[in-house]
């Protein structure tokens, strides 16, 4: 089922959001969509399921209902993160930015990704806020370094289609690839599947224009982020906070020292959903 109001949209954001018993992903998607509209000037399409769609309060550009694949368990709970390969078919846009809902947009930086490639790009390097030189993640000790599905830009093209078809193939044979590359296959990860899919399409070589030329910034462990103000949406208009305080527990000799830094107009990705909920609520 698809509800479409606008035709001939060429550029937009696509988010996947399926509520779980623990987290309201739709609410996160709404937060992400508001910021995409404000900072990128782009409409957002949400891919969700029937049940989650009932909780939508934001005026998304499109709401696409799909049957979720609930065959992924993390921490004893269903984690619906499969099906990212459908982005290519389900996106109503010619040029699409696929974002994780927990990616906090605070600037127009992501618009540059549309200039970098004719088909596809994603992050291949990460940086942890307040944890400089953190090691890059590898699928396993003798496999590739992980790419990141947090931000994907693709343009409708034969090559992008091939990448998403390869992503589907990897998802369907995830345990097999986990076995070959020696990573834990029990929990499906889009990052790993994307890594393998892109390597397959590229003949196991690197195409530099597939990689966004700056780091994906994560908020990692021992780190908390607090919004310096709340976003406000009322009859006077929308006010978006772009200033955050990042606090880090620096452990040395069994003692913890709290350190902080303030950041502004800077995009980042929060892995911890509880932290993200705190930011959404100011």
């Amino acid at each position, binding site marked *: 089922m698809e509800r479409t109001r606008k035709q001939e949209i060429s550029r937009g954001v696509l988010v996947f959001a399926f509520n779980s018993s623990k987290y309201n992903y739709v609410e996160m998607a709404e937060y992400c969509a508001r910021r995409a509209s404000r900072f990128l000037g782009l409409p957002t399409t949400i891919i969700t399921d029937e049940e989650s769609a009932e909780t939508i309060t934001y005026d998304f550009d499109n709401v696409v209902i799909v049957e979720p694949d609930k065959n992924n368990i993390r921490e004893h709970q269903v984690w619906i993160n499969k099906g990212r390969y459908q982005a290519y078919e389900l996106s109503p846009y010619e040029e699409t930015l696929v974002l994780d809902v927990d990616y906090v947009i605070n600037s127009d930086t992501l618009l540059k990704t549309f200039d970098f490639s004719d088909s596809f790009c994603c992050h291949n390097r990460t940086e942890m806020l307040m944890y400089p030189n953190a090691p890059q993640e590898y699928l396993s000790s003798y496999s590739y370094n992980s790419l990141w599905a947090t931000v994907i830009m693709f343009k409708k093209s034969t090559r992008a289609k091939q990448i998403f078809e390869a992503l589907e193939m990897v998802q369907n044979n995830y345990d097999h690839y986990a076995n070959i590359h020696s990573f834990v296959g029990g929990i499906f990860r889009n990052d790993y599947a994307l890594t393998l899919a892109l390597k397959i399409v590229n003949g196991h070589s690197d195409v530099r224009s597939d990689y966004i030329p*700056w780091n994906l910034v994560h908020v990692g462990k021992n780190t908390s982020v607090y919004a310096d103000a709340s976003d406000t949406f009322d009859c006077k208009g929308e006010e978006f906070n772009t200033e955050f305080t990042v606090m*880090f527990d620096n452990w040395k000799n069994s003692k913890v020292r709290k350190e902080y830094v*303030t950041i502004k107009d800077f995009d980042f990705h929060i892995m911890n959903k509880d932290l993200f909920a705190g930011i959404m609520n100011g």
Partner: protein
Amino acid sequence: MDTKTLIKDAKARFSHNSAKAYLKEKYNSKLIIAEQGGLWRADAQTIAILASFAALSNMNPHTTVLIDTFDNPVQVEVTSLLESLTTLYNSVMTEWYAEWKELENKR
């Protein structure tokens, strides 16, 4: 609880090293620009080589081939690329400097 109270209660110290790293991360991405069929970083090295070519008045036509950040050779019109990169460099570095000065004063 507002963040100022939070910092005070936690007795947290401002980390200048982290601030420096964050600024570098933030402004490095802003220095990248797609122009004339290539992807460029508006850094001192690229601007310097363009400026030195631009100074050669006997270059005619005023084009050269540079390796872009994707390692592709790209034929570029020197003066217009130099102008774009210089403008971008100045605006980004001014912002970087201003935010650095602001953070440097924090304790």
